[in-house]
């Protein structure tokens, strides 16, 4: 009897209770502790499921008509374990961070966590949709937690509500049609049913669109860089490191597991969407100057990378290359785990910057290294991990992904020969740009001198927040140095999702692919090289007499913070290179003095890099909906006679139609 998973859910419920009843002083401490326990239990339950000890439950009376069917298998277990880890770190962090948060928000966090844990365990269509909606509603309410303080929160909430519900409609339509054709709604029946032809295509495309909007995939990503920054930071971490994964889970579950793969073009669509998201996300992140918005776009980028792996896995599976498919899927799942670790760390660190300074504008930060040394260290660790450079953990999964893409080249056919090099180029370009992005975030946000009074007054985060960040940092280091620890579990998942080969064969193949590089050796070599360089430099420096000299400041007065590179100026060369893609907008307004047009009174300069997809795709759609709404207002002018007339006309038309057709 496996009680870990129910135990985690019970602890979530307890945390919710503890956030509502005890006095406000101890509320966040009690709820945070209980929720951290829930996260740890869920992590253990997920790991157990990945190791083969699955858990299932059938509760026919909980939900009328359909009942609730839960089953935690290896695939669901991986996502539950990742979510559990994120919850643990975020819950410990929230003890200090959410001390003064409103009670509703504190009650909702455990509920959101429970929904996140349950979604990958759902084993029937109705259960899945119910939990999916619970997750969406809980996160929407959490995004709106600060709506009284900032009006931007409301607009973010509206965007999120609309897009998440459009996504739900797509998933609902797809899964319900699938269940109707299969003659049963449990996942086991769906898996057995042989959905073929147009239905399978419709189900796949509808669910893909819905899940992609949850994963923040271009062009359905617009809610993500708005909603994630506006939520409280521990909720941002939950959303950005755990909730977006559910989109990936849905695509893998429905596309590879329930539909059992499909023709190659499905997965080329997935791969193309992933590549587009990765590039668009990292380009927008590179020019963003809001720290949390930057991290939100980086989430879009990383989910795009994961989708490249998933798309490649489906493509290889359809081409009959099971070994490569397992490698690509394992790389994608490993990247999900790695992304969850470093994105939790980065969002929590961004939250402690917000807590310590009150701003998240990189152009107004700086100089945090002296004022918040521990936060700076963990953010630097997260930035290293996120920039796909060794010895970070994202490097390992992206390396595996590149290997799977490159190995397909010799005998993959024409479409592989065209698509895979492009995918390799997209992954490589993304990795390079993400390094620039995180150098910018760390360099302008934390180093140099403070650029504003807020940054000057920054203070270090309380111990509980530091403990949460340290936990996420430890996970990053462990994943960076020992990715082989999680590979057996990932191999279990690929063995389950891609039938035909056992997990043992997958495990052996993955170990062979992974052993082509050794993260520990790379890290050791880097450490030795750096130490040797330092020793040589020091020896050279000691041979000469030292003299103290003034910092060269062009001979003039002290250097001010205004002379520093800002985030905007650091990104300017990149922005110029990608000028045609990003289409930045700038506006110069010159006001002359009244007496003479030759004398300038004031110059106002404004520059912004709007999201072009949002600009071109959503603005016209919203304008059209607005116009239709205005036009239809004429139809309902408040006259009762007119409404009675409408009713009569509708009745008459129905009668005529019935008379003609029957």
């Amino acid at each position: 009897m496996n009680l870990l998973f129910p135990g985690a859910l019970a602890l979530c419920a307890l945390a919710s209770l503890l956030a509502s009843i005890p006095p406000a002083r101890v509320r966040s401490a009690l709820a945070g502790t209980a929720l951290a326990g829930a996260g740890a239990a869920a992590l253990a339950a997920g790991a157990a499921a990945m190791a083969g000890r699955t858990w299932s439950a059938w509760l026919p009376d909980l939900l009328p008509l359909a009942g609730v069917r839960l089953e935690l298998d290896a695939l669901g277990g991986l996502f539950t374990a990742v979510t559990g880890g994120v919850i643990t770190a975020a819950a410990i962090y929230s003890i200090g961070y959410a001390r003064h948060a409103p009670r509703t928000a504190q009650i909702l966090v455990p509920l959101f966590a429970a929904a996140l844990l349950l979604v990958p365990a759902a084993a029937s269509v109705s259960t899945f949709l119910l939990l999916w909606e619970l997750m969406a509603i809980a996160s929407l309410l959490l995004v709106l937690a600060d709506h009284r303080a900032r009006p931007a929160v409301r607009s973010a909430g509206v965007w999120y509500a609309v897009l998440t519900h459009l996504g739900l409609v797509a998933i609902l339509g797809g899964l319900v049609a699938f269940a109707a054709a299969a003659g049963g709604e449990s996942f086991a029946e769906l898996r057995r049913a042989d959905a073929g032809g147009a239905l399978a295509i419709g189900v796949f495309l509808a669910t893909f669109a819905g899940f992609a909007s949850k994963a923040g995939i271009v062009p359905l990503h617009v809610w993500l860089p708005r909603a994630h920054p506006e939520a409280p930071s521990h909720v941002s971490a939950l959303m950005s490191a755990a909730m977006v994964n559910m989109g990936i889970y849905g695509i893998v579950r429905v596309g590879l597991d329930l539909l059992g793969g499909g023709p190659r073009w499905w997965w080329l669509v997935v791969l193309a969407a992933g590549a587009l998201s990765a590039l668009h996300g990292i380009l927008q992140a590179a020019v963003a100057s809001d720290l949390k918005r930057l991290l939100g776009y980086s989430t879009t980028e990383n989910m795009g990378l994961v989708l490249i792996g998933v798309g490649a896995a489906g493509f290889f599976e359809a081409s009959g290359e099971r070994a490569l498919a397992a490698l690509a899927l394992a790389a994608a799942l490993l990247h999900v785990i790695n992304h969850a670790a470093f994105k939790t760390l980065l969002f929590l660190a961004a939250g402690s910057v917000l807590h310590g300074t009150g701003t998240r504008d990189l152009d107004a930060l700086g100089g945090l290294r002296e004022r918040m040394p521990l936060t700076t260290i963990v953010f630097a660790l997260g930035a290293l991990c996120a920039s796909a450079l060794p010895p970070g953990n994202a490097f390992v999964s992206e390396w595996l992904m590149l290997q799977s893409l490159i190995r397909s080249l010799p005998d993959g056919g024409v479409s592989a020969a065209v698509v895979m090099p492009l995918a390799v180029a997209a992954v490589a370009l993304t990795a390079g740009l993400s390094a620039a992005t995180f150098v910018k975030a760390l360099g302008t946000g934390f180093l140099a001198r403070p650029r504003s009074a807020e940054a000057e007054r920054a203070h270090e985060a309380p111990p509980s927040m530091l403990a949460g960040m340290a936990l996420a940092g430890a996970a990053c280091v462990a994943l960076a140095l020992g990715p082989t620890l999680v590979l057996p579990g990932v191999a279990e998942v690929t063995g389950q999702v891609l039938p035909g080969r056992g997990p043992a064969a997958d495990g052996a193949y993955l170990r062979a692919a992974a052993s082509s590089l050794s993260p520990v050796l790379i890290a050791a070599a880097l450490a030795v090289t750096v130490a040797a360089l330092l020793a040589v430099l020091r020896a050279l420096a000691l041979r000469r007499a030292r003299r103290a000299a003034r910092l060269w400041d062009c001979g003039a007065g002290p250097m001010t913070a205004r002379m520093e590179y800002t985030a905007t100026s650091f990104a300017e060369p990149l922005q110029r290179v990608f000028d045609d893609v990003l289409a930045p907008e700038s506006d110069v307004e010159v006001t002359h003095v009244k007496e003479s047009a030759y004398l300038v009174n004031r110059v106002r300069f404004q520059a912004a890099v709007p999201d072009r997809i949002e600009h071109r795709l959503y603005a016209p759609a919203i304008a059209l909906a607005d116009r239709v709404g205005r036009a239809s207002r004429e139809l309902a002018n408040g006259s009762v006679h007119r409404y009675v007339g409408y009713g009569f006309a509708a009745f008459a038309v129905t009668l005529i139609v019935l008379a003609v057709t029957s």
Partner: protein
Amino acid sequence: MNLWKKIRKTGRVAEPAPPRPKDKPPKPELAGSVQIRHVDAGSCNGCELEIASVFGPVHDAERYGARLVASPRHADALLVTGPVTRNMETALRRTYEAVPEPKVVIALGDCARNCGVFAGAYGVAGAVGDVVPVDVEVPGCPPRPEDITKALRGLTGR
């Protein structure tokens, strides 16, 4: 293509190199290659025009090992023009301190040597020699490019 044509048509415009200087350079460590930072301490820009001509294609001081650099931290020599104004006095002193040893200071033009026509003006702190130690002087208002080249060759020994 046009560029190649132009290069071929123009040919060589540099003056033939005069014979090597016979004297030993004042700082033998710098012989062969001298990196120069130019400081305008309050000049009327007449001297700057001549410096531009010295480093242009006709006189081409770089072939004798003299080169202009963008920071005193990279430099071996300071090339100072103009009388030292009050605004530039501290900056000149700091620039001098920023140049690593061994270093040379060249006072270029009459203003730099003895304030020239600006001597006694209220905004002038003094000649270059009053602010930092001067090693080489080049007279003239402005000095002829040949004289400047000769002074620089005296430093490089080439």
